[in-house]
């Protein structure tokens, strides 16, 4: 097997992905390439990393989407801002054997989010080109997926009709034609009486940590410059710990995560639980996110700092934390190139017990899981 890494030229990675697509059992290998930690993303720019992910995602349209890839599709539909990767996720949906109902509202959200940032994309080439016949757009692909879903997306019918009736239109004539086709395909169905048992938001799961790392001794600094070890802060009471960086470009990820962390803190206060829990976040980008930046970032998002509520950075490399918690993050030459959403609950010994990953977490779910810890 070809050794693929961050320095492998994009064209070679694409050739590798193309070969995998032709292989009958390649699904899980391709899913493995979607993980942010995969070495194929090491050192690449965010643009390159996102295009690679998009290229891999589109594979599933033809080879079928493994269950293990569903979380990646949901993530893109829920938080993606890049027209290329959102279009790829829309195409990947067409590889699902039995699409779950909760994809429908996610696709409507994706349309709403991408409508003001749509762009021409082409999946014949990994590198963008000017013009070309085989181009499409993210909106086009999303509506084509609705057409593919047909009656299974009947719940979207009112929303699709409303989109078409907007005046002035927020869609180009070409996209409007795709909406018409989607409506025609969807409208032949009846309202579904079947309700999915599964929510799309992140659900708690357990996990193993990397045992070769002494997480307790890792040096941390908080938003006020105070220094202590991971163990000193996180041992003694249960904790909700998430990860972020202040340069994150996607407001649906880090900015929202810290805002929600603030709301989580508020709820623990309202319920008189705040003295029982730590609420904290560690930056992926410790060299850049100095104390002052952490303080301002948290305060602007409603975090009320106290001895149990802090934003943190590692004093050394972030790598041991990343490996210990198996965090979905990777780096370009200057900063993070991509990351998923990760929230981890630690017990009072500072040991991880539960994680909410990739999809958006809800404060109520995290609070319930925190209560079960104490």
């Amino acid at each position, binding site marked *: 097997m070809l050794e693929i890494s961050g320095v492998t030229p994009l064209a070679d990675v694409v050739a590798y992905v193309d070969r995998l697509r032709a292989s009958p059992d390649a699904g899980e290998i391709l899913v493995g390439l979607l993980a942010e930690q995969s070495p194929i993303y090491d050192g690449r720019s965010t643009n390159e990393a996102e295009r690679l992910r998009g290229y891999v995602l589109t594979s599933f349209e033809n080879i079928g989407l493994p269950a293990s890839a569903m979380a990646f599709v949901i993530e893109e539909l829920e938080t993606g801002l890049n027209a290329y990767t959102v279009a790829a996720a829309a195409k990947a949906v067409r590889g699902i054997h039995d699409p779950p109902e909760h994809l429908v509202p996610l696709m409507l959200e994706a349309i709403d989010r991408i409508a*003001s940032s749509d762009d021409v994309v082409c999946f014949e080439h990994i590198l963008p080109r000017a013009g070309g016949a085989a181009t499409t757009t993210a909106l086009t692909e999303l509506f084509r997926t609705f057409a593919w879903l047909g009656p299974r997306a009947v719940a979207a019918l009112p929303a699709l009709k409303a989109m078409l009736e907007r005046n002035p239109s927020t869609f180009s004539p070409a996209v409007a034609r795709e909406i018409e086709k989607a409506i025609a395909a969807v409208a032949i169905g009846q309202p579904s009486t079947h309700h999915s048992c599964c929510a799309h938001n992140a659900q708690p799961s357990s996990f193993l940590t990397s045992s070769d790392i002494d997480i307790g001794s890792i040096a941390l600094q908080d938003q006020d410059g105070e220094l202590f070890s991971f163990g000193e802060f996180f041992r003694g009471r249960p904790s909700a710990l998430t990860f972020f960086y202040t340069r994150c470009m996607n407001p649906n990820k880090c900015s929202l995560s810290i*805002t929600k962390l603030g709301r989580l803190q508020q709820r623990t206060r309202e319920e008189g639980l705040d003295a029982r829990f730590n609420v904290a976040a560690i930056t992926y980008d410790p060299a850049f996110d100095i104390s002052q930046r952490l303080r301002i970032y948290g305060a602007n998002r409603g975090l009320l700092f106290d001895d149990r509520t802090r934003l943190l950075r590692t004093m050394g490399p972030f790598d041991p934390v990343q490996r210990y918690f198996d965090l979905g993050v990777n780096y370009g030459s200057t900063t993070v190139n991509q990351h998923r959403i990760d929230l981890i609950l630690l017990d009072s010994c500072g040991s991880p017990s539960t994680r909410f990953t990739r999809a958006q977490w809800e404060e109520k779910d995290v609070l319930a899981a925190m209560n079960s810890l104490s």
Partner: protein
Amino acid sequence: MTVQIEIPGTDPQGRVFLTWAPVRATARWDGASTSGSLDIVLRSAGTGGGLVFNNVRSDQNLPTLNLTLPTDGTKVPFWIAGEFQKPSAAYGDAVVQATANGGGGVVGSKSVMVRIRKNAQTLSGPERDRLLAAVGTLNAQGQGAYRDFREMHTNATTREMHGNVGFLPWHRAYVLDLERALQSIDPSVAVPYWRFDEPAPSLFTRDFIGESDPSGEVVFRPGHALEHWVTDGQPGLTRELDFDVNSPANVISEADTFGLGGSGSAYASFMAMEGDPHGTAHTSFGGPISRIGTAVRDPLFFMLHANVDRLWAKWQWFKHRQNPQDSKAFAPANPNKIGHHLADTMWPWNGITGNTRPPVAPGGPFPPTPVTSAPGPTPKVEDMFDMLGVRGGPPLACAYDDVPFELPPALVAGGGGAGPG
């Protein structure tokens, strides 16, 4: 002093800030309590800002006002406003003075400021430097609250404020929010406007908003308050002028802006100004200010938008269109345009996130000021229409140097009004 003058809206430091909007104030005898009364005259006695007075709420105010004060200390009301086109240049350069009638001496006085948004081209050096110092402090080299303002106005939030009828009300609130943030640093500051249809060579200098070098980098005088400007994690700015600095920008004139849609134009026609002169003012440059998603990186943004807001305020005054319920003063939004209907609260001040609103709401509720109760912590679109309170509601406590206070034709002078809340 034996006459005390009390003006509502006094801040905790005892300072008073007025605009052209009349405020209901009081004077009272503060000497020994006796029976009888004292006749006094109120007049403007400052070296800069002018003041005018009246017994009733009016747009025809007087340079002096005679009052009779009971010597038992009873408060006697009167109305006071900044004298149109005589704004202050610094705090305390406007003074209301009370003298005893019949040639008596000064029996009371109060220093105030007539705080008005002025043409940036005409700002004095000290006014300019106070403004820049406050803007620099707000940015704090990327660590200050300017970041909140930056995050409010991005590609991801654009539907809250562009391409629809709420464009002008939202941006009025936005400029006012920034102005209040600056005033929390230096209360003598008001956001000046860049009159983009006239030359403004004093503005684009190293001493003011920066001079563009041949490569488009904005350079400042060493030690300038904006020299270490940081936004989006990046130091510095580019701004390339696509017009001669001694000429107007590539925009239509104020007269043509007023002519959009013809002489009887309603808001639905006037809204075309979002494209020109607003859009064309932005795109009279290269650099971040020329694109929605990055425009706020350049502090010139707020002077540009103060002028857009001034044009609306002036149009509202000229056509008497401060009532949002007037069908010519506003246009209905499409049903699906949340945030653009008169009764909708505006993001981000309403704190509403998710669904059709952006995922986060930077900056918190709208900041209060001691000067007025308007527009409240979660302003609605309809709250931004009556800047000077001509219809009797609380004013927004901001004003432009060329937009006067004038009562609507239907209102008779003295017809009430809440004054500042």
